[in-house]
Structure formats: C-alpha cells, structure tokens
C-alpha cells in the first residue's frame, strides 16, 4: 500500500512514491491495509505526539469517524 499525497488514488492507474510505499504483511488483507497510510497512521501519530498514556484524561472531539475510532483502539492498548 502507498500514501498518495496528491489525491490521485481514485484512478485506474496511480503513481506512488517508493518512499511512501510499504509491502503488506502476510495475514493482512489489501482492503484493510489501505486504511493504514491515512487513517491509522494519523491516529498513531496523534497518540505519539500527545504522549497520551495511563492516567491522562483525554478528549477526542470527533470520536466516531475512522481516525477517532482508531485513536480509541490505540488508547485502549
């Protein structure tokens, strides 16, 4: 899967940067893997930059979307 930075994903053929492309590991289906570069990487980055951890009181203002759901799952780990 790849992160397409120019919004060119909705196409028959797309050019991806090698530096933003990763092989999908065995056991992860391709459709699920497509949610990682944008949605899950955002949630992972947010949890990282905020250093959210045990004991913190956290508010996620938009919790029901894709990123919000991913944040919820990551915070529960």
């Amino acid at each position, binding site marked *: 899967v790849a*992160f397409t*930075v120019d919004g060119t994903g*909705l196409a*028959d053929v797309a050019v991806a*940067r090698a*530096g*933003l492309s*990763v092989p999908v*590991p065995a*056991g*992860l*289906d391709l*459709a*699920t893997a*497509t*949610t*990682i*570069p*944008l*949605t*899950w*990487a*955002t949630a*992972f*980055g*947010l949890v*990282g*930059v*905020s250093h*959210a951890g045990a004991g*913190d*009181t*956290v*508010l*996620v*203002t*938009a*919790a*029901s*979307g*894709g*990123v*919000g*759901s*991913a*944040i*919820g*799952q*990551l*915070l*529960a*780990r």
Partner: protein
Amino acid sequence: VIGGLRSPAQVATLAAAYTPVTQGEGFVARALQTAGVPGFDIVLESVGGSVLASVLGGLAVGGQVVSYGAAAGEPDPAPPPVPDLRAQNLTITGFSILNRARKAPPKALSLIQGVLALTQDGLHIPAPAVVGWAEAIDAHIAQSEGRSRGKTVVRL
C-alpha cells in the same frame, strides 16, 4: 477517555474506549462534567472553529491540544498569547499526516510502519466497507453525511 459525537445516533459506532458526549452547545463543559475533571490533560481536536476555541479553555494545567483538522469549515481561532501558555504550561500542537507525507516523507513512512508493526503485535484493524464502482457515489454521499464509519474502499 471522552469521545465527541455529532449526534447521539453515532454512539453505536463508537470505539469501546470512549464515554460519549454529543457536540453542540456547552460541549466542552459537558465533556468536563462527564469526565469529572476541571481540565483535560490531552485534547485531540479535528472539528476546528468554535470547538477548537472552547477546548483551549478546557485544558488542565500542563495540558495539550493537538489540532489535526477543521472539519466544521469555520475559521481557526487566534491562538492564546504565549504568556498565557507559560502561565498554564500549555502546549498547542498541529498535526497533518498529509503535510508530513508531502514535506517529510520518511516521518510519514515511519508512522505507517509503526502501525504495521502493531498489527504484527496483535492490533486488530477493522475491515473497511468495500463497495463496487456502481455503489461509489452512494458511498461518497454516506461519507459526507457522516453515515459511514471510517474508510470505504472502492474495488474496481
């Protein structure tokens, strides 16, 4: 962890970690009341506009707000003066995966690789909705109206 919702109907799609509070009048005050604290340690904020402005007033001493979107389409509020940040030990952080990918690709790549590593360590990523080309228009409308949870994949 408090999770903000656009409507009470979205409770059904909320991750288990969240205690729900519906956005709207008095949102941050109600969220604080639900959490039972005078201020939040961390706010992850993507609504923007008036919601971002109000969460800046709802931080605990030493609190941090991370702004990663402005979905409401309202103008961003002016940031607090630096002396006010010092007085309360506050941090305001901006985050955009798209701008990281554009300007610092290795940093975006490391986030993607970090998530992949978690999947090898037991993180379960829910399968997205997968639709065919004929359903793509309806899927776009559902996304824009907040009726779908997360990403929808169009399989050609």
